[in-house]
């Protein structure tokens, strides 16, 4: 039996007994039932599996479990109530929605470091993400909207 790997998943301390070489994506989806990160390509080419590790976007499909020991992992589930989710819904910025959980975490990471990103800056931050349905114009608007919402004084 492996020594459990401990990390923080969406604010909750977890100890996972999986083989430390298990892809983080499988640990999240199958061991922890956190299904927001999605398998898309397995090669860091589409962004569907994106999660935040200590706040930085990271591909869960290639990242192995051991590498998140002691770190914090945030998935789209951990963004419940975040301005990015509200803005994506307000703009109806999706069609099939398969890409959105990855896009949401990258957008949240962008807004944490850049409160007023330009359209170009938003596009650059989302460049690792593919959307096949063509919802990108709405996603770009939604992230700008989330930035504005975060800047507005709390009601």
């Amino acid at each position, binding site marked *: 039996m492996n020594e459990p790997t401990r990390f923080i998943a969406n604010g909750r301390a977890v100890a996972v007994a999986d*083989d430390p070489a*298990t*892809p983080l994506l*499988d640990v999240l*989806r*199958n061991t922890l*039932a*956190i*299904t*927001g990160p*999605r*398998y*898309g*390509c*397995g*090669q860091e*080419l*589409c962004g*569907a599996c994106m999660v935040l590790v200590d706040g930085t976007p990271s591909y869960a499909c290639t990242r192995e479990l051991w590498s998140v020991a002691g770190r914090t992992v945030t*998935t*789209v*589930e951990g963004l*419940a109530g975040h301005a990015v*989710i509200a803005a*994506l*819904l307000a703009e*109806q910025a*999706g*069609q*099939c*929605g*398969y*890409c*959105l*959980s990855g896009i*949401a975490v990258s957008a949240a990471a962008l807004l944490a470091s850049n409160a007023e990103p330009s359209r*170009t800056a*938003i*596009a*650059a931050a*989302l*460049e690792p*993400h*593919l*959307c*096949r*349905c*063509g*919802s*990108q*114009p*709405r*996603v*770009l608007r939604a992230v700008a909207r989330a930035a504005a919402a975060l800047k507005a004084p709390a009601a």
Partner: protein
Amino acid sequence: MIPNALPKSLADNPMLDRWLHFRPDGRLRVAVGKVEIGQGITTALAQIAADELDVPLARIDMLSGDTEQAPDEGSTSSSQSIEVGGASLRLACAEVRALFVAEAARALNCPPDALAIAHGAITRAGRPTGQSYWTLAPRVALHVAATGAVAPKPRAAHAVIGRSIARRDLPAKLAGGGFVHDIQLPGMRHARVLRQPRPDARLARLDEAALRKAAGGPLDILRRGDFVALVADSETVARRAAIAATTLAVWDGLTPLAPEMAEAGWLRSQPSDDRTAGPPPAAHSGLLRHQASYSRPYIAHAALGPSCAVAWLQGGQLTLWSHVQGVYILRQALAEVLHLDAGAITVHHAHGAGCYGHNGADDAALDAAVIATLLPGTPIRLLWQREDEFGFEPLGSAMSIRLEATLGPDGLPADLLSEIWSAPHVGNTRAGANLLATRALPNPPPAIASNESSNPDPGAGTRNAAPYYAIPEHRLLHHFIPRGPVRTSSLRGLGALPNVFALECFLDELAAFSHTDPLDYRLAMLPDPRARAVLSRAAEMAGWARRGPSGSGTGLGLGFSRYKNRAGYAAVVAEVVVEREVRVARVWCAADAGLVINPDGLINQLEGGIVQAASWVLKEQVAFEAAGIASRNWDSYPILRFSEIPEIRTELLDPGDQPPLGVGECTMGPTAGAIGNAVAHALGARIRDMPFTRERILAAIG
């Protein structure tokens, strides 16, 4: 009213209780056969039901795509879900409403026209009567056939139709769930399939010991003929096995592909079934004749999430969750292949990634079903690897198109000849015999050839090949190649994008001969006022009048079509900048979809089509190598990325009281035409073959 007058979905499923069920818990379940594939259909259909019945949206539950409880509406395709499915639901709701009002009138001893319905409750002179759909439901028999005799509400009475209601499914998808991929069942195991690299390949050798070692955990290797399933409790183990198996398997009988077969022009050398329609061109001696050829290569549906299905055989009953476009069509195919009674199979639609046509969904469903029958009692989650999705999904066919026209004395075309070379876009592609696992199992039945028609109405390879413009004579030559080098099937718009691209580019070329502005040239042969309206409006939005001389490196081009020559109208203007590559900077679109159910959802579809069409035109081509499809991941099959997304402005024109028109595909052809024409304007030279690569830019300006 005769049953034939009912829209197809209602004629096929006339019993009203198949559509609507007022449940004892005070909710209304609306069951439909058209399924959610990212187009927002379940939201739009809920709006239709809410309006027709005067039931609040919040009290409606949608069930879509279910062989036990929902109507059989065939496949969700071809922009038919609102036109046919919506019209059917609307009529069913109107009729059910009338039955309830009649019953309420009896109960309240008053004439039916003294009653109204608000928020699901029966009112009289604006006051509650104590009756509602739910109080009356036990007394109203809905197990009766629709007659079509009750007219739906007039447009002026719509309160929910025409409003931008938020999608019902997106909140779950932004909370980590919502897809077939996310289903977890007790004892569920994970499966992958080792695929025949080419049709009819025979598995000569598979080193199972090496495979188990590579998998790194307990693995079941299930083999039936050349069908090999890899099943494990751990998805990690199943995936490792799948990756290793492709290199460990040795196959015989590979019919190789060659890189040049991936080019559309290769089809011209292939044996074809030639069909012609329309009169031969008349002799117009002495006038200018022009001809040009255009092409699109093979395109992948390239769903962002690979195909997936969950199957479970329990006590002889097979239950399947799949993201197919047609649950009943799949059930029939499964019954054929598995030698089961269709009644022993239940298919539930579950959401997948956007498919844009017939992709690997049906094949993955059969994979899962075969494995489930080999492991009775165990729920099986079958997922394709990304490389499987690109390697084995049916592709959108390459097309080569030659157009030829004679210009009359007025500078307008006096005739048009459209010559098309294409492999199938439709036709028995979902038959059980044609699914991938069937071909690998022992003693496969003969594959069924496509029965694709050449009639351009509504057309498959010939879709939109007949001009919507008033051109006096049109002749069509369709070189139908029933067996192309790879499996092909329906992809968004079928032949419409290549055909509209070719015609719209060709019209700009003819306009240049006539020294006429492309907009004026089109308007001179477009009698339909709705067509003229979208074209004029898109040009106005784009500031068409500012369009300067060609060759500046920046270009403005336009494209128009009415999808299938009878669905939604769209005109698109594209602004491009051509440097090392083509960049689409801005796009303006005007569309007319008749009655709009959900304007925001509709614009989402129009704009999604613009982005996807831009991606096809600028970037996409499936590559072949001897061993099969060479482009197996996003690095070798790039699509448009965020930094390349144009700014898009879209307007919906209101044509007055007109029926709804399908729009899922209507912007794609016009976008392709607009980009083709904008690039020609930017360069002063034309690129006629997709995709518009760096090499083709250089060749054009040569």
